[in-house]
């Protein structure tokens, strides 16, 4: 299968992400320049972390207007697999492929640390290699990761099991301290209703090799690869 990693001016996890899917998972992978209109036959599009357009206006707000994002939107609406990591998640929210918005972290600090996530829904292309309740240790690095949606929106997310990953403590409990950025309902990873687009604030590409301190992020990429191979 083939991964396409979108590059915006200010993306800074693009190389790490390409390395994870190409060198660690030995899949075909290519960068996709934001000004192009070509997804180069990718089976899965990844919007990587970073600070697209310097986070000007709002995180992800300008990247949304990049020419390539129109193709990405069409690809997603046709059921294509799209993963947004950190800034990529913010872009997906601004683009309207995922519901809600990101606000500044509750403690107003840039958070760069390992966190624990619990898999809430394993019947997705992004988590099927795991099991429900499984706790992953994956790092975050963001200023605006405080997920917000209105009450009606939250009910909808819960009804459809769209919150795929939640911040928990090491034992998998939803404690207030574990919800480091103040996200609504501990939301760390969110899927669209159709189930083919996932946004997550933690960085699985930074947790895909033992030398990086955790291999738990592999589960996300492995799930996508398994999913694509079986469809």
């Amino acid at each position: 299968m083939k991964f396409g990693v979108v590059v915006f001016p200010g993306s800074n996890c693009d190389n790490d992400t390409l390395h994870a899917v190409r060198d660690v998972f030995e899949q075909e992978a290519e960068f996709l320049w934001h000004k192009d209109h070509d997804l180069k036959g990718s089976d899965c599009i990844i919007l990587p972390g970073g600070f697209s357009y310097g986070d000007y206006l709002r995180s992800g707000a300008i990247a949304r207007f990049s020419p390539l994002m129109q193709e990405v939107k069409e690809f997603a609406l046709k059921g294509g697999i799209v993963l947004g990591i950190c800034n990529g998640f913010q872009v997906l929210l601004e683009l309207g492929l995922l519901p809600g918005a990101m606000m500044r972290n509750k403690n107003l600090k840039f958070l760069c640390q390992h966190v624990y996530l619990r898999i809430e829904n394993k019947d997705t292309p992004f988590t099927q290699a795991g099991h429900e309740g499984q706790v992953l240790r994956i790092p975050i690095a963001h200023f605006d990761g405080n997920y917000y949606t209105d009450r009606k929106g939250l009910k909808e997310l819960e009804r459809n099991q769209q919150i795929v990953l939640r911040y928990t403590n090491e034992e998998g409990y939803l404690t207030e301290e574990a919800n480091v950025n103040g996200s609504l309902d501990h939301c760390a990873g969110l899927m669209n209703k159709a189930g083919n687009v996932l946004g997550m604030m933690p960085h699985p590409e930074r947790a895909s090799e033992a030398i990086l301190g955790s291999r738990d992020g592999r589960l996300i990429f492995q799930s996508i690869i398994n999913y694509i191979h079986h469809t």
Partner: protein
Amino acid sequence: MKIRVLVSYKDSVLDPQGQTVKNALHTLNYDCVKDVRQGKVFELELEEVSPEKVEEVIPEIAHTVLANPIIEKFEWQVIEE
């Protein structure tokens, strides 16, 4: 023509930065400050547009680009004819 657009969080959305500013003001003994909401100001310079066009285009720009309507509201005014 110059337009000023003010974007701020909706009243229903917690504004942690505004809260922090308020706390700082209280530390300085400005106890009269009851609440602070932080926002952004944009000044747009337009050329050759009719007042009707302005009425149409400014809310559109504010809604699609300057503000994120999920969490933010906006207001605007003409500051220079």
